[in-house]
């Protein structure tokens, strides 16, 4: 890279590389009106990074489903809480991480809906999580120091997608 020519006492190739591949980190309040601007920022960020085809849809879907769940169900009190969204993009995969300090909730505990059942007989909840489990390669959950952490990973498709 040409930046090598700018080499000086403050510069190291590692630092440049790591800042270029730094993840996007957003902190939003548990308020529905904070969601849209965050999604807008994610779109722009992924666009500017030339992320793989389909990554924007996946990231926006993940954030919308998980953050909406969190805003609706994670808190009993009327206090303001912060939800952290991290999007990490490497050459291999995209990882979407959502962290909140709400009630412990493991999305993997939701049963998979039986899509063969007639519509009338299907439970209405859990649809968003069902989508994410099917569209992403992995969904991990951990409870760390009073926080829920959900990590969704999607490998970069090897074939150019249309």
């Amino acid at each position, binding site marked *: 890279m040409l930046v090598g020519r700018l080499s000086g006492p403050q510069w190291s190739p590692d630092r440049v590389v790591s800042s270029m591949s730094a993840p996007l980190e957003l902190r939003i309040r548990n308020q529905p009106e904070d969601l849209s601007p965050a999604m807008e920022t994610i779109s722009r960020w992924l666009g500017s990074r030339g992320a793989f085809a389909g990554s924007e849809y996946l990231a926006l879907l993940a954030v919308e489903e998980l953050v909406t769940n969190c805003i609706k169900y994670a808190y009993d009190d009327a206090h303001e809480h912060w939800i952290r969204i991290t999007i990490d993009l490497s050459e291999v995969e995209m990882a979407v991480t959502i962290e909140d300090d709400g009630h412990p909730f493991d999305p993997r505990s939701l049963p998979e809906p039986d899509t063969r059942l007639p519509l009338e007989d299907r439970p209405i909840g859990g649809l968003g999580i069902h*989508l994410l489990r099917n*569209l992403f390669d992995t969904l991990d959950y951990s409870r760390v120091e009073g926080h829920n952490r959900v990590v969704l990973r999607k490998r970069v498709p090897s074939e150019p997608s249309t």
Partner: protein
Amino acid sequence: MSQLQVNVHHQAAAGGDQATIKLSGSLDSTTVHLLESRLTPVLASHPSHVVFDLEGLNLLTSAGIRLFLLTSKQQKQHGGQATFVHLQPQIREVFQIIGSVPGMKIFSNTAELDAYLIARQKAHGSGE
């Protein structure tokens, strides 16, 4: 901001009336209420077909799917149908994951939809 544009076009046809609802933008938890409010009077008139044209839709989340499922169910209750046309690849994938639903039909283009509607109208007409 996530935004949704809803265009409703209601027309009488030979085999019953048809409401076409063109959506563009993002159908998610913040915008679903807009579609719901536009849809309520349409469904109340019991159209034989509600056609959702999703060509301009770039995000569909579970909030939107729930409304689609509910619409299909309501349509089925009075013998009508909800059809979906022009699904972008990722929207199509979402529909595939949900699985087939009674009262719901999906078409890849308008020609396919028209052929179906004409056939249904003919069947409808000859049956009465």
